[in-house]
């Protein structure tokens, strides 16, 4: 397959598309929080793959990591600022959960929407490089080497980003749970205190948070 892709075999690209369009589409969605953007990213990814075909290493396994890497770069363009991603993610999460439950909508579908909303909200709490690693490794199940190949970064970097991202996800999940329990929004927040706080100017604000 790699040889055929490098040679510009058009049929090979058709096969690639059939095999990986869905994976690229879903990966793009996690990175853009918008299904229609994800579709655009998916389409552009395969065109970009065609353009970059002679960069494919002749040796190696599946081309899926390579395609997901191109999709990551393409999606990165959509949301250069994390702020924009967060907005999109929260809008999408709201849209996924706000849709009225149709009588004919099966329970599984509603669960699916909830899961998507939860996932997007969690992803929005990450910085972009972390989000990219976590969607590749956990969303698409790439191992460290494949994710490193996809992103063009060292394996060690993948590992460290992933562990940081996981920690954050858990912290976010724990934080959300804690927030719901704490009805009056008071009390210490030991988990969230940043150590080494040098911004003295802001002290009064923190102390004064009710």
């Amino acid at each position: 397959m790699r040889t055929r892709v490098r040679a510009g075999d058009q049929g090979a690209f058709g096969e690639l598309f059939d095999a990986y369009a869905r994976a690229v589409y879903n990966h793009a969605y996690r990175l853009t929080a918008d299904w229609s953007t994800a579709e655009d990213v998916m389409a552009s990814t395969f065109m970009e793959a065609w353009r970059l075909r002679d960069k494919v290493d002749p040796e190696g396994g599946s081309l899926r990591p390579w395609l997901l890497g191109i999709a990551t770069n393409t999606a990165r363009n959509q949301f250069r600022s994390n702020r924009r991603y967060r907005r999109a993610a929260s809008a999408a999460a709201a849209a996924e959960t706000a849709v009225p439950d149709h009588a004919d909508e099966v329970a599984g579908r509603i669960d699916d929407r909830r899961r998507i909303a939860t996932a997007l909200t969690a992803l929005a709490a990450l910085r972009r490089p972390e989000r990219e690693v976590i969607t590749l490794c956990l969303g698409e199940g790439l191992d460290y080497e494949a994710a490193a190949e996809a992103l063009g970064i060292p394996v060690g970097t993948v590992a460290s980003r992933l562990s940081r991202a996981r920690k954050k996800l858990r912290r976010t999940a724990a934080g959300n749970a804690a927030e719901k329990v704490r009805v009056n929004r008071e009390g210490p927040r030991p988990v969230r205190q940043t150590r080494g706080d040098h911004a003295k100017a802001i002290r009064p604000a923190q102390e004064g948070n009710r």
Partner: protein
Amino acid sequence: MNANTPRDEQDAQLLSRTARDLPSGRHQFHKERLMAQIHEQVQQSRRDERTAAPAVPAAPAKARRLRLPRPAITLPAMAFGLSAVIVAGVVTLGGGDGVRESGVATGPALTTDIGTATTKGVPQLLDQISLAAAEGDHPTVRAGQYIYIESVLADTHVRTVDDRSSLVGQELHKRQMWESADGVEGWLIDPAVNDSSEGETLTLPDEQGNTPKAHLGSPSYDYLAKLTTDPDALLAKIYKETEGQGNTPDQQAFSTIGDLLSESYPPPELYSALFETAAKIPGVVVVDDAVDAAGRHGVAVARLDETSGQREEWIFDKKTHVYLGARNVQVKPLKEEGILIKPGTVNFTMAIKNRAVVDGMKETPSAPAPSQAG
């Protein structure tokens, strides 16, 4: 290689179980389109080889910026995006790994002096702001008219090139947005976003025929006009509809109101009510001095997101209490990806330059629309 502990399994499920199929017919549609484009390129490069064999220099990769359309872009815009890919494919073969830069120059991270925050006087200030807001000139928007918002903005973000991350600040740039009262039609000119200086359409529905419904996170003028102006009811609605979003419910409520104040033009009753609502959110502070993106000093109503150490500030004129703009300032150090985001870093800054109701898209209050006036 991945150690699969039960917790990892949970994490993995969080993401992988969200997978969906492409909408029906779209797989085949995109496949045919891809094959047609590849075919076309092959033909084109054969023609090129015949005509201008030696004369193709290594074209500058930078000159050709590939950008994808933003969300909610119509089919023609998408076709444009794809045809741009084709052209670029010919020009910049081997021109990089697909990472592209925005259309706005970047420089060092933006910084500022952090103003002093206090909870003292928050209700009084918001009261004054609310009163000023009620007096403001807010014409109603008729069907067929558009809301026009002109702003200047810039942000600071982590840029990663070849695994080396650095903090860069965007050059301050102008942004113009038009939106119909129902939120369905729109146009955006923002060099940080657009491919072309003409801007791009925000008109809905998208290529799948979906007309997204206006909601709190993406409101149209019509939606805002129908929103309750009772602060308690409004606050309850905000908490309910943003549940689970953002770092904390309070911060998310504050940000939601902040977004309604910035690139939108709420009717006066609601505009005024938004400030009364904000006054009810715990943790809101007054910052004695803040500068908007246009360099105007003012007083800010702000809230610290304790998770990220970032303070969101809404900036008002000290005397008239008119809304000037907003910014997001790092007030506690945050280390991410080996990059330290120091206190005083301006993560985002924006100033509203003009808000108006105009009769046509791409029409500004001072100049009629280029082609489609009225």
